[in-house]
């Protein structure tokens, strides 16, 4: 099993450009999450999904959109990138919510917006 994979690993964008980050998991997990990590800020939840076809807002959803058309994939979109979105983005998945369900993290995508 590959676990959680993220594409791409690195990306540089110019202000105003758009892009989509792809997260894929092969563990048949129901729940998927997108976080961003900035120095000194820890992991901040952007959006999450509790199942195929459903999404919900996290702590910092503005400027991002997500889709979960297939259970194994969770896409994060930036329609008009801004320098404030320069960050490392982590995707995670878990089998269920609550209880003793750990999150499995992907390797991260380092995004720079110029």
């Amino acid at each position, binding site marked *: 099993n590959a676990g959680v994979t993220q594409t791409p690993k690195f990306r540089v964008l110019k202000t105003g450009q758009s892009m989509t980050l792809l997260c894929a998991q092969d563990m048949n997990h129901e*729940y998927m*999450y997108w*976080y961003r990590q900035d120095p*000194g*800020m*820890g*992991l*901040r*939840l952007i959006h*999450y999904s*509790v199942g195929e076809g459903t999404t*919900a807002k*996290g*702590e910092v959803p503005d400027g991002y959109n997500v889709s979960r058309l297939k259970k194994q994939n969770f896409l994060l979109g930036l329609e008009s990138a801004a320098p404030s979105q320069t960050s490392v983005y*982590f995707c995670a998945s878990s089998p269920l*919510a*609550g*209880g*003793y*369900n*750990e*999150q*499995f*993290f*992907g*390797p*991260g995508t380092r995004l720079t917006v110029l």
Partner: protein
Amino acid sequence: QQPVQSPQAVILREGEDAVINCSSSKALYSVHWYRQKHGEAPVFLMILLKGGEQKGHEKISASFNEKKQQSSLYLTASQLSYSGTYFCGTETHSSASKIIFGSGTRLSIRP
């Protein structure tokens, strides 16, 4: 709301002990603990679900005080491999499945 972790950073000599605290202003359903090495993804350590619960993982253990809405991570006889940033993540009863992480505690172990 983001849980509050303390201290923000700690430096230990190998073999020393440390305690990292995580507190919330809301009633908690569960507390998660993760460790992240520099340049890597966070890695799961443990989850505490019930008030009063204590768990152990190697020489790393944790407790969860539901009434006080806080959890503590205990690192005993620290090893060089324990270096990294430790994050607590919390779920509340009103929003289970939504895990909010603290800003992290950076742990440095010196030989």
